[in-house]
């Protein structure tokens, strides 16, 4: 039941905002809708924690502890982001960057985007999952090009083409899975249902599935932003409006990774080998290292944090690739803390860029002088994302790295070098932005910084203390993924 609500609210919201998006209260409506979604997802979470996995609408939808935690996370971050986007978009409008119609488009697409992500998470049907992923791309493309600047158009175009092509590969993979599945489950509806596939995964034809996995990995991996398929990501993050960047790297990448992990489970079952895991580890490691070196030559602040997202997605992919309870646990924890921290950073960055009127880092100076909250938010967020204790990112990185030391020692030097380089790159730039003499104008509307500190508070908490029920929850999920 909650599932329907979760999906219905954003859908309705999208339509409503498409109609009333030009109204004064549109941002509030947006937040309200997102809040509704969040509530529904909260209820769903409670349900699932209490009485276990469930399916709905003759098995078209299902939730287990793995995707429910992503649903909760998605709904939550979507909600806080909507809170942030309210003043942010007003300021953009005030600066004359956006027209009413653009805002309308923005709000309606924001809701639809949430809808597509939740659909992708909740559906039981791999085909529908694919459809939802594609739809997520389509809804965000127009958001990326919202400003109609040449750069934003270029970014959007690349985003569209690269992700479209990638996702097409994913479809081919899905077809292959179906092809293999119908041998076992017979043609028709059930052959794409995850719950059924999961049961029979050991009987699926290995060769087909290994091919399928390649297509799926390349396809969804493009959306995860794994190097060398990542090229759309920095452009899209840098050029789109900041709330969109926040949800993109905070949520969309997670969802894509979710898809990859789901398919990994099937393939592992079918192959009985560690092929999928090795591929993911390879991609993860490559992404981490490449992103680290990209980081050290960035000028645009949002672009830089986009690369840091690539780095962290690589880290998660690596973790899920390693498999095993601890690594998977760490991977999910990292998903959580990364989305929280990264979106918080983007909130702070957004307001910082609005204050200084530029995204070039050498022109952003002395944030904590005039607006300490933004400055400290950026500083703390950056240090958190760099894996500084006592923040949660360190907790998950600690687990990932120690597991790697334990089972794949040869990877640790690469990981740690990359982390070191990334630290040097990001930290140096953060410092010059936060400290020093200032170059800011005050904002026409009060910035929304509550979300920033809520997120960072949660991350800090997760670094020092992981509540038992959350831990159990992760453990169940880890057990599901294996």
């Amino acid at each position: 039941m909650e599932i329907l609500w979760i999906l219905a609210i954003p859908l309705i919201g999208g339509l409503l905002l498409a109609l009333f998006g030009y109204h004064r209260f549109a941002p509030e409506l947006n937040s309200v809708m997102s809040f509704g979604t969040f509530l529904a997802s909260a209820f769903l979470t409670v349900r699932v924690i209490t009485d276990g996995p469930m399916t709905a609408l003759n098995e078209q939808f299902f939730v287990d502890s793995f995707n429910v935690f992503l649903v909760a996370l998605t709904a939550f971050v979507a909600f806080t982001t909507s809170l942030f986007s309210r003043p942010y978009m007003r300021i953009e409008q005030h600066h004359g960057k956006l027209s009413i119609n653009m805002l309308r488009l923005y709000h309606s697409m924001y809701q639809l985007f949430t809808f597509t992500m939740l659909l992708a998470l909740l559906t039981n049907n791999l085909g529908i999952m694919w459809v939802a992923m594609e739809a997520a791309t389509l809804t965000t493309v127009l958001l990326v090009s919202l400003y109609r600047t040449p750069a934003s158009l270029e970014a959007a175009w690349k985003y569209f083409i690269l992700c479209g092509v990638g996702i097409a590969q994913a479809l081919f993979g899905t077809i292959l899975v179906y092809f293999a599945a119908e041998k076992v489950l017979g043609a028709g509806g059930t052959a794409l249902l995850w719950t059924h596939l999961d049961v029979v995964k050991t009987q699926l034809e290995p060769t087909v599935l290994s091919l399928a996995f390649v297509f799926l990995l390349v396809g969804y991996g493009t959306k995860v932003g794994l190097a060398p398929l990542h090229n759309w990501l920095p452009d899209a993050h840098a050029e789109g409006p900041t709330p969109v960047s926040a949800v993109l790297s905070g949520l969309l990448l997670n969802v894509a990774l979710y898809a990859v992990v789901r398919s990994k489970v099937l393939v592992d079952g079918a192959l009985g080998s560690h092929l999928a895991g090795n591929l993911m580890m390879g991609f993860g490691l490559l992404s981490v290292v490449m992103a680290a070196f990209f980081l050290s030559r960035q000028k645009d602040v949002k672009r830089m944090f986009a690369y840091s997202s690539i780095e962290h997605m690589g880290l998660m992919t690596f973790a899920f690739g390693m498999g095993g309870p601890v690594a998977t646990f760490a991977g999910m924890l990292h998903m959580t803390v990364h989305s929280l921290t990264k979106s918080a950073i983007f909130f702070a960055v957004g307001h910082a860029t609005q204050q200084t009127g530029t995204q070039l880092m050498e022109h952003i100076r002395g944030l904590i002088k005039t607006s300490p909250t933004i400055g400290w938010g950026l500083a703390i967020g950056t240090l958190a994302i760099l894996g500084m204790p006592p923040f949660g990112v360190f907790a998950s990185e600690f687990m990932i790295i120690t597991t790697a030391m334990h089972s794949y020692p040869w990877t640790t030097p690469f990981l740690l070098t990359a982390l070191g380089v990334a630290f040097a790159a990001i930290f140096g730039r953060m410092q010059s932005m936060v400290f020093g003499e200032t170059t800011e104008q005050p904002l026409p509307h009060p910035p929304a910084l509550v979300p920033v500190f809520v997120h960072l508070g949660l991350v800090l908490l997760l670094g020092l203390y992981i509540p038992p029920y959350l831990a159990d929850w992760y453990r169940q999920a880890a057990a599901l993924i294996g």
Partner: protein
Amino acid sequence: MTVVTSLLPIDVTLGVIAYWLLLAFAGLLLQNTRTLTRVIFPAGAGGALVLAAAALSSLGGPVNVAVLPLGLPDLPFHLRMDSLSAFFMLLLGAASIGISLYSAGYFRDYAGNKLGLLCFEYHIFLASMALVFLADDAYLFMVAWEAMALSSYFLVTTNHNIPDTRRAGFIYLLIAHVGAIAILMSFGVMQGGHGDYTFATMRSAHLTEFWASVTFLLALFGFGAKAGIVPLHVWLPEAHPAAPSPISAMMSGIMLKTAIYGILRVTFDLIDVQLWWWGVLALTLGLITALFGVIFAAVQTDMKRLLAYSSIENIGIILVGIGLAITFHVFHKDAVAALALTATLYHALNHAFMKGLLFLGTGSVLHATGERKLGKLGGLIHPMPKLALLVLVGALAIAGLPPLNGFVSEWLMLQAFLLSPGLPHSYLNMLIPIAAAALVLASALAGYVMVKFYGVIFLGQPREGKFEDAHDIGIWERLGLGWLALGCILLGIFPVFVILLIDPVTQLMVGHTLGNSAAQTGWLWLTPLEPGRASYSPLILFLIIIVGVIFTMLAVKKFYHGRLRHGPAWDCGFPEQTARMQDTAEGFGQPIRQIFEPFFGVTRIVPTPFDKHPHYRGESRDRIWDYAYLPIASITEKLSALIGRLQHGRIHIYLLYSFLTLLALLAFVR
């Protein structure tokens, strides 16, 4: 009463840590300068006192452990307080009493909000250092370690509108982080495949010699980055001057010791084997560090930089002691190993007091004159006699002069060198006396440095401008400095008690103590091994000197008419003396620079005879920058430029990447 008895030292310590955190948040909320300086900082000092007492009571006592339900689900916070932790906890408490008291006075004219933040970071810093000593699993250790680095980083960058400060902070945290990564790796090796990261597991793990060496080297690198061992020292002379003086005192006096703690913990406690060449390595590095530090200290023209380099020197001396201890321990000369280790710990304790005192002193000078350049200071003994007296104690102590504390630890160290019995390796036997010589050279140079430091700041006349508005220190400063100075004197005069304190630690580390031999001729005489071989009684020495002085004075007073006239300085009859004719710091360091020319990259600007306004500038920079750090930076730069080319901007190329990836993978799984 039962409550009191059932209260374990570790509980008290945790209490103090919690209390400090409380103070931190109180400071963040209050933001009122008066309250902060009058209440919070003294309260922090009180906490430090309790901490020191708890540590004192648990030294030699039973090991307490505790587990907090925090941290990772599979790895909650493990805490453990054994003698080693207790000793360093004592160091932390005792030194930070003085520093906190001093801060109460020093920060009195900081803006409220700024000070609130600073107070927050300050107490977080204290608490995290205490946690470092308590940590008994890798996760908590790393958390505490990095929290320490982070809080100190923010403290260093308090005055962040100065570009140099920002640069200093960057270098500091970067090197600290790289070190932390190395430490993490060493833990990873140490747990030896159990996948369990409690120290208990590491103790029980048996490593092969190769992996043990890897661990040791990683730990030496990681902790060395924090301690400032050459060539990882570069952050020290940047960060210490940048920070407000109490912070510099804290970092140099206490934080560097956490690194020493780490090295000792890993080498003697967590790893179950040691190899003799570790000791030699540590010894050599220590000597290089000590000489390097003191030579650079001698040519500095900024008083806080000078002290920072002197800290590097002292860390080097401590490392030398560790190296000796390792070597002797490996060859089962545990008595001498204990002697070396005692000297090491003793010196660590001393340095906390001496360097704390001196940095706080520079703080007061800075506060009174607003001047950090030695070239402009001078003659401050006249406006600020109390400060001058207290700092003199510190200067004499760190110069290693009897009967103060710096001398005792160096004396013990030299005894360890001298009494080194024949070691199986002839090279070692040759190395040890040379090492002793180098050590002595370093400590003699320290005397030079301190004369420069004290003489240029306090004696003579102000070199540029007069410091009329320079006022002497207030009550809080006096309390803080006085406490530390008293520590320097007491630690110097009653060594036997200190050694009895250290004994449990050496017992734990190398399984031998000095106590029974040290105390066998009573607490008055310090006899590390046996009375015939070496003995030293600082108290008697002190008394004799006092008696001698008093006797002479009385005699002179009795037989001398005591007529006294005041006149201008004679100076060999030279006319028109000006204050600018005194040696500047630059000039005072000139001979050293001349002797050790190759160490420095010296750049001189020498005036020609025809200059209207002749102007001499000479600056000596650290060659290690050019040889070690800049190359690394440029390599990273090149690599990233190379990789950056991949992001080519053409969508076709991007599509090609995906295409090739796809084909490659297909070919791979096929």
